[in-house]
């Protein structure tokens, strides 16, 4: 999952980004002003937008309106130091999904971020299952018939992204865009390597669910028919 944090207070933005990377395993990009932030949302790489309300350039509310005008469904969480009800109502009516007032609890921010991403992908529960595999987004663990599978952080993120859309074809490009931030050098073959490792680990525990490679089109999480 990839998150965009638009916050002019650099120290705060870094803390949030660090926590999202460390605790949720998300890829995070930061923008310091509203204009840059709005431009970055246009790529549609993000699974969540975290916006400060008072921003130089373009304020949070304007970004929300821009995003929603494009029919972009990305969940939006607003950070604000002001919590007058009228303002909250205006924000939510403009298309924001949730808000947090500063100073907030970092743990609450992470929980809300995860919940919004889950909801945005149509899965309200924190545990997702395909075949015998169950993935817990809170614990960031993957089990096969109750047995823990030891995955690297990247393998976990890859599976987490794919498990929200079983049987759908996800391109390598999309995986790159949603699993890595801008600071990472893009090499499409890195995805292939991680997919191959993940496939091996699943097979090792005797799981029939696997990730199919469709040449030139992408990847697909496939479970045996009767088990889906």
């Amino acid at each position, binding site marked *: 999952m990839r998150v965009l944090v638009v916050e*002019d207070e*650099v*120290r*705060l933005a870094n803390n949030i980004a*660090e926590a999202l990377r460390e605790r949720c395993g998300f890829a995070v990009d930061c923008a310091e*002003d509203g204009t840059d932030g709005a431009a970055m949302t246009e790529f549609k790489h993000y699974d969540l937008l975290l916006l400060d309300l008072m921003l*130089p350039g373009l304020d949070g509310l304007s970004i929300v309106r821009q995003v929603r005008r494009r029919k972009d469904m990305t969940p939006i969480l607003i*950070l604000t*130091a002001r919590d007058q009800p009228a303002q909250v109502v205006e924000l939510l009516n403009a298309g924001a999904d949730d808000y947090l007032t500063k100073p907030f609890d970092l743990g609450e921010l992470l929980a809300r971020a995860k919940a919004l991403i889950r909801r945005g992908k149509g899965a309200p529960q924190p545990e997702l299952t395909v075949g015998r595999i169950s993935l817990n987004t809170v614990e960031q663990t993957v089990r096969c018939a109750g047995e823990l599978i030891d995955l690297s952080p990247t393998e976990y993120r890859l599976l987490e992204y794919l498990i929200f859309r079983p049987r759908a074809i996800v391109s390598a490009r999309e995986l790159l865009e949603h699993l890595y931030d801008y600071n990472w050098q893009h090499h499409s073959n890195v995805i292939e390597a991680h997919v191959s490792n993940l496939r091996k680990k699943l097979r090792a525990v005797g799981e029939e669910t696997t990730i199919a490679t469709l040449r030139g089109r992408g990847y697909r999480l496939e479970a045996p028919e009767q088990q889906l």
Partner: protein
Amino acid sequence: MSAAIKTHSLSRQLIGGVLLAELLCAALFSAVAIGHEMHGRRRAFDVMLRGRADSLLGAVQDAEDPEDNVTVDPTELVLPAQDLYEVLSPSGRVLGHSPASSAELLAALSASRAPGTFNFRVGRERYRAVRFEGVRVIDREENGGYRRPVTVLYAAPTRGLWHGAVEAVWFYIAASALLLAVTGIALVWFLRRRLSPLQELAAIAGRVSTRSWEFVPPAAVLRTTELAPIALSMEELLKGLQLAFERQRRLTGDAAHELKTSIAVLKSSLQLLSMSPRTTQQYKAGLEGLLLDSERMEELVSRMLTLARLEEAAVEQSESCDLPSVVREVAQRLRPLAELKEVTLEISVTEACAVAMHTDDAELLCSNLIVNALQHSAANGRVSVVVQERGGIKGVVELRVADRGDGIPASALPHVFERFFRADRSRSRASGGAGLGLSICKAIVERSGGTIHIESAVGTGTEVTVTLPALPTSA
């Protein structure tokens, strides 16, 4: 709102006043009419009295007695029964009197000695009487007649006189009362109608609150000569008040925003650090960051308090400092920063020149301006600080701080003295400012009765000019 204040209605007072004046007029008119009528009637009454008395004189006859006396024979006279009369001889002997009258009445009648008309009262009855000396010639046919002087007293009750007069002017009194009622009703209607703009104005003014500032005087109010100036000045006042109120609210909101953001940084840094086990190295780095965060927060709070202090207290008489020496000292202190940024700091100051400013405030003003200039200068730039008497005018000192930095965009220039305003937020955050530096400068300068002015062009640089009244040299 408060029941203690006794209110009085303007329209009720007006109506009351007009009706009272009308009532007085009607009363006066009626009194004059009654008086006039009474005067006429009294004169007619007097003539009637005299006439009756004359006819009484005619009734004086020879008594046919040995003393050759005269007597009154009223048998041929037709006189009202309630009238009373008396005929006296020159010696005072009663020659005759009205037969029905009591002794008390006759005594009251004869009490008057002067001739002419007079009034008297017996019991509840009022009388008007006439007394005159007459001469009656008796037996004119015989030997030229005898001349018999007599005194005739004749009185009649005036009861009917007053009633008659009131009856005569009754129509006028009734007409006045009717007029009074009609004008009263007309006045109420007219005033209600005419005063409706005033009520509208009051209603609209009553709706104004700190949440709803809308005040649009209705056309009817603006068309009223007396109300238009009130409505317009109220509109003006409310607009000013709204601006001030909103500015204050924004200010409080901005201050809260800054503080909350600072706390959010501290809190998130702490929570991030305690989220998972860290190495000693990581803890150390985290603590250093936290220390910086808290220092920035301390700076923010101290600046906000400085600003509050400057705006609250008036300048004291004893506050004075030598501006050129303060500038030299501050420049000396900031030289390391200038060297670090590789900026040349040029100082050009006049001789000693005192201004009404506390030394600490003057230092804060100079350091804020010079640090700003240094921070906005590129490497190898130049910052010049000049203190001089302005244009040769004695008594006015000018402090100019100019840089050749990146300048301020024209759109941001009018706002630079506003609190928490940052032309470039991310950058000022990085340099630790909270957008209060220039607000503090402005407060310091204005507290000492001076002015501050900023000129800037993108790419050319910025110049801040402070003009202060100089104190007379105490040397």
